[in-house]
Structure formats: C-alpha cells, structure tokens
C-alpha cells in the first residue's frame, strides 16, 4: 500500500473537459476543470446530480477519456495512454468502489477479491492469502465464502473496498460509496475509509453526504454544471487516528 509522504502531488487535472451527447443534446459534463491532490489526502467531490462528479472520477479512473485537458497521476499522463495502458492504470494505480458495489453476483466475496488479484498476475496461493487478509482487514473474516446476494449492503461495500485495495493502488476512487447504505452503515464505511487513509491510502470520493465527508476529508470540492465552484479545507476527526 502507498506510504508516500503527504505534500507530494499525486493527481493533477489540467483544464479537463468532457462533453456527452444525450440524444441530440450536447451535455457539458466537465468544463475546464483544473485541480490537484496530494499523496495521502482524502478529497471529496460534492455537488448536485449531473454536476460532473462521477464523470471526473471516471476520467481519473481511466474508464473514460477527457475531450480536452490533461490528467496526471504520479507524473503518468493518462491522456497519452492507449487502451491497454488504461487497463493497467485501472489494475495497478487506482482502485474503484461504487455506489452499487459492482460485485460479480455469482462469485463469493473471496472470489470477487481474488479476481482483481488474478488480473494483477498473482498465483492461486497468493490470491487466497491476500484476499483473506484484505477481507479480514475490512471485518469480513466470517463472510468470505458468501456471495453478494447473501451479504448486507455494508458488507458488500466492504468486499468492494477489499477488492479495490487488492493490487495496492496509490489512489482509491469512491463513487458515492455510502449512497445505498443506511446512516449507521454509511458511518461505518466512512470510518473504514478514514482508517485506510490513515494507513496511507489516498482517496478521491464522490458523495452527497457532505456532513459525513467533512468528518474524514482533508478538502471538499464542490462542482456545479461541470465546473469547480468552491473548495474548502476540513478539520479531520480521523487525523489523529
């Protein structure tokens, strides 16, 4: 896992734009967005639906490409990568978690985590050992052999977090990780993310839960209509662990 000192630039977006066609209508999801993030930071992106939060996350995650601008992670320029390069970026550089968990329903928790490790080139023994350790670290020691349908929302999200951490990424991308969870479970997941951050994992999170975000984030960036409207520093509850 990442142990790089804070205050080194991890992520840089320079004048990034992304436009979609929604039928015949052109939607400017992101317009000239420029921001950066340091190693070890948790940055939360907030804003109304359609403000461009998820688009930004998808661009950083290498699931999508900007129309204009540049994205750099540890000085690797994503915009110059080919499709295979982006796949390697998703495999090793970032880990993604989603509102709807996106676990493969036919696979157990252990197998879902193992799959990411398999893409990372680990052999069967390593996969099992690492997946078990990761699932233990997110509190799912007894639920490893359960399929997503047999797990609660919070448990599913923990599996997703364990999977996202499988190949030791330097940046965790969380797209509304608490969006489908009740308030208590949301708080547990946010706490887990805070704890991971304390262990050195940088996190870029999209959320609607501003209050929750304030508790764990170093900064909160507000987007509106594809542009950064506001940015504020937070006092972190988890700063001292």
């Amino acid at each position: 896992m990442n142990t790089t000192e804070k205050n080194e630039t991890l992520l840089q977006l320079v004048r990034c734009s992304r436009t979609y066609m929604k039928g015949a209508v052109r939607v400017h999801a992101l317009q000239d967005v420029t921001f950066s993030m340091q190693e070890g930071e948790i940055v939360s992106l907030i804003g109304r639906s359609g403000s461009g939060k998820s688009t930004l996350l998808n661009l950083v995650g290498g699931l999508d490409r900007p129309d204009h601008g540049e994205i750099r992670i540890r000085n690797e320029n994503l915009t110059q990568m080919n499709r295979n390069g982006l796949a390697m970026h998703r495999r090793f550089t970032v880990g993604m978690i989603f509102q709807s968990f996106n676990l493969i329903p036919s696979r157990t928790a252990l197998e879902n985590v193992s799959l990411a490790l398999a893409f990372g080139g680990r052999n069967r023994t390593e996969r099992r050992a690492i997946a078990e350790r990761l699932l233990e670290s997110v509190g799912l020691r007894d639920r490893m052999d359960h399929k997503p349908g047999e797990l609660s929302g919070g448990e599913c999200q923990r599996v997703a977090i364990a999977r996202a951490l499988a190949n030791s990424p330097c940046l965790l991308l969380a797209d509304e990780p608490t969006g489908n969870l009740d308030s208590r479970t949301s708080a547990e997941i946010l706490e887990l993310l805070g704890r991971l951050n304390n262990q050195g994992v940088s996190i870029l999170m999209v959320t609607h839960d501003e209050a929750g975000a304030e508790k764990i984030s170093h900064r909160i960036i507000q987007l509106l209509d594809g542009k950064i409207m506001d940015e504020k520093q937070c006092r972190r509850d988890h700063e001292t662990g």
Partner: protein
Amino acid sequence: MKPDELARIALENLWRTKLRTVLTTMGVIIGIGALVSMVSFGIGTQKNVTSAFYENDLFTSMFVTPVEIDVNRAISGDVEALAGVLYKPPSPLTDSTLSEFQAFPGVEIVFPEIRFPVKLSLNGNETQTNLRALPAGMGKYKPYNDLMAGHFFEADTGRSIILSQELLRQMKVLLKTKQLRHRTPEDSLRGMRLVEPDSLLGRLVTIGTSVVDLEQMTGLPMMFMQGRMRVPFREIEHHFHIAGIQETGQGFDRPSMISGAVIPMGTAESLPRTGFNNIWDVLSGKHDREGYSSVVVRVNHVNHVEAVQDSIETMGYSVFSIMDQLSDMKKGFLIFDMGLGAVGTIALIVAALGIINTMVMSILERTREIGIMKAIGGSEAEIRTIFFVEAGMIGLMGGLFGLALGWLVTKIANAVANVYFIREIGFTVHFFYIPLWLVLGAIAFSVVVSLLAGIYPAARAAAVNPVDALRHD
C-alpha cells in the same frame, strides 16, 4: 492474467449457464456427428474399392493386348476406333514376345490370359462362370498365396481347380466362416448347405465347356429353313478336384479381373472348347491368327509399372493397368468425399450460428460483469480471450461428443446395412471407416469453426464501454 486463470473463468461462465451451454454444444455435436459419419462413409467406400485391388495385388498387374483399343472412343461409337481393331494387322503376342516381356527389369511373371465361359456343377447345383487359367507360379502371389482352404497348384497340369467362396455360394454351398458360424441359424440358410471349407477339398466338380458342333453347323441352313434353329454348340463335361478355396474378401472386390474358378494353365490349353477367349477374339477373328489375345504381365513393385508399360507400348502393344485408373478414381472419390463433407459442414455452420447467437446473448447478460472486469483492470485482450476460450470449449466438447455421435451413427448404420448384406450376399461390408486423421481433423475443425464463431462476440465483448456497462442493469 495467466492463461489458465482466463480458462477457468471461461469454464465457470459456461458452467453457470449449463442448459444454454449444453444446447449450444448439441448443435456442434450434431454438426460434427453428421460430418464424421458422412466423410467416413466416403472414405469407407473408397477403401473398400481400392483395398480390393490391393488385396488382390492388381496394381502390379498389366494386361497386354496386341492392338491399340481406345475403349473410350469405341464406347462412344467411334467406328474408326473399332475398325482399327478389326482390320489393322496386329503384332502377335507369341511365346517369344512373352519371353521378351519377361526380360524387362522388374517383371516377375508373364502368362497368357486365358478365360472361357464354363458351366460348373457341384452336387447337382449348377452355376456359370468364366474359368481362368493361371500358371503354377501365381501361387506365390496374392490372393492365391493365402487361400482359405487347400493350396494353389504346384504344376501346370492336372485336374485341379480353385473355387471362390462366392462361386460355392452360387452352388448352394455356404462355408462355415467366423461370421456365419455363430450368426446364421440353420433355418435361414434357404436351401444352402453349411460346410467346413476343408471338407470340400478333393471333392469333384464338373465343368462343362462348349465346342462348336460341326454336325449342327452343316445342317444349319436346313434347320434355318425348317424353323428349327438351334445354337450350333455342344457341351463336353470334365471332372476336376477342388484343390483350394479362395476367400471372398470384404467389400466390393469382385471386379471382372478376378475369376471365381481357376485351373492350371497347361490343363486349360488342352481342354476342348470354342477357340476364342473373349469377345474381341470373336470380332477380330483372332482364333485364326497366331498368338495370344491378351497377356498378363506382373511386376514386383508398383514403381516398375510405368517403365514396363512404356517398354511394352513401344513394342506396339496396348497395355491396360489399374494404376492408370487409380488417379482417376482418386479424383472421383475426392469429389464424392467433398460432397459428403459439404453436407456435414452445412450442419456445422448452422451450429456456428448457434454459438454466435448464444455468445451474443451472453454478452448482453454479462455486460455489467464485463464492465466490472474492466473497472478492476481487465484488459480488452483478456476479456476477448475469455470469450474465445468459451467458444473454443464449446467447439472442443462439441468435437469430442460429435465424434462419438458420428462413430455411433456409423456403427448403427453399418449394422443395419449388414443385416441385409448377410442375408442376401453372405458376407459383411464395412461401409464406414474413421481414420485417425478424421478423428483429429473433426475435433480441430470443430474448435476452429467455434473460434471463428467466437470472433465477433469476443470483439464485441472487448469493445464494451465500461462506463455504460457499469450502469447496465
């Protein structure tokens, strides 16, 4: 990701949709089954025909005639071709010519071809055949070196005869062979006698030859005028002992070159009979001329056929060899096999469409899963490989089980056909033959066709947009 892991994921995916996988694979199984049974029928037919020639060693034999007979031209009604035969004075095939042939390198034996129609009778049961005369030296060669019972003649004289199993059958004698020993119940013999082959050795066979009846010939115009026209031939009977029995082989090996009854050359020459040996003799009036009507030249290896054939043709004789016909036969069989193969291939193409359909459906169902795999780092090549392996596995399973189905179909079809063959002809025929190349080729073909069918679905899966796929329900 390591290839074995990709294969495992592919197998898991197939296992998850068992019913659909089985139904899709069934299409391939039927396609390959059809292909294998069709092609094996073609190969079996070809094998039956060519192996009959090999079994009787006919590829090393040539038939020499004194004149150039362009059979194709003659058959197509070309009068000049026939006129050449009838009026052109040929170089005679004399004993000295035979000695010249014998001197060519590679030639093992040369003897005149003597055949004439006879009436055969054993225990009062009669049949008609062309009696063939062979020198004792032929006992060294197939099929006479391995008779079912008895031995070939050791001298060119004597009243011995070799009869074929089939000819005996025509005279209501059924030999106790392995096939018949267990399978034919006595009540289904339909008047046949079932005997051990060895018990026939030494038994007397009566041969009736025809000679021209001079008395009848002189009275011919009178009989004609009186409306009492009779054939001016008289039959003379001779007695021979059965010296050996020749097995009727598997397949369709009764071309006209193989005679069912063989007697020693010297004996044949001394038998009174009509003076001609075949229809050409009648047409050309050969019986008045010097020399033999045709001569058999045998070489020790097929490689010598061409050189000896050329040498004999240079001497002004006409040569016919089965080798000449073999390449034409092979071409014919190739077309036959291709026709049969095409039917099987059509079935396989239908199966391939089934694979494409199944896999495209599978992509629609698994769009989100593909998106997830891409989100956690799966590359396009890996996604493509997973789908390829799935298609390949369907092909491999389809190929293996299709081969088994094809084999089963050929066994059943052969058994059903042989019920008729045993009853009507008295021996079994293997109509189908599945060589190793067909086994391996069918599996490989199945896998290749399935992989081709997988190209489009795999490419489509690899091209899935992960952002859209993750939103997919």
